[in-house]
């Protein structure tokens, strides 16, 4: 990359990141390509309100390391939490970081669940990372991710 190209790109990146928080979640959903394009970084920023998330060992993300078929990849997320009225997991989000629309599932839990664990099956377009973003009741965000090798893509 040429030095001047680099500065041009840097300029647009700075401009986009400055404008992005001002745009509402709904405005972000207008996409030029595909029916529902939404990148991982954008989604995390929109959910955490720009605060970002901390990597935590409290989250257990279970995904197969090698998925033979990307169309069906089982994912389960467990969060170490007492799930009491004062301290519980508010939401668990699952992302496929390189899918066209990275958002897969957002689960909003309540203390009535008793245990903070969810499981589902996702589609993966290719080899990529699967990430979980957890919102705790005190407003903090935790994250965990694991890479998955996909031999046959599941999208398209």
């Amino acid at each position, binding site marked *: 990359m040429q030095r001047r190209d680099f500065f041009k790109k840097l300029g647009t990146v700075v401009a986009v990141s400055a404008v992005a928080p001002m745009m509402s979640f709904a405005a972000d959903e207008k996409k030029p390509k595909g029916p*529902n394009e939404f990148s991982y970084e954008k989604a995390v920023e929109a959910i955490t309100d720009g605060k970002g998330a901390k990597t935590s060992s409290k989250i257990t993300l279970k995904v197969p390391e090698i998925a033979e078929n990307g169309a069906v*990849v089982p994912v389960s997320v467990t969060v170490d939490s007492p799930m009491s009225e004062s301290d519980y997991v508010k939401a668990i989000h699952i992302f496929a970081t390189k899918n066209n629309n990275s958002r897969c*599932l957002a*689960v909003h839990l309540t203390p009535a*669940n008793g245990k903070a664990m*969810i*499981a589902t099956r996702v589609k993966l377009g290719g080899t990529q990372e699967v990430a979980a973003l957890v919102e705790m009741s005190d407003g903090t965000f935790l994250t965990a991710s694991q890479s998955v090798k996909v031999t046959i893509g599941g*999208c398209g």
Partner: protein
Amino acid sequence: MEKVKSLIKIKPKKYKDGEVVKVSFMVMHPMETGMRKDKKTGKIVPAEYINSVKFDYNGQVITTMNVWESLSANPVFTIYMKINGAGKLTVSFTDNTGAVNETSTKIKPKG
């Protein structure tokens, strides 16, 4: 649209009051992303995916989910739930075409 097959499974089958059980909700749904092309006609298959899922236990909403198209076809949603008296568990979902479906099962704790 033909009738959507869906099923609620509770594990373990016999449970007591206050126990935390695993609830799996399975749906037969194509979950089309709207990006796939039909190989015969070459036309894009229109998007059809589940938007939201709601778990309702005796009138109390215990879990809601926002769903996007990256979930696999015929998805499974598994959560845990604390048994709190006999009653009814209702799981409903809507998809982006506006279809609404509801399934319910009886909750009968023993002992």
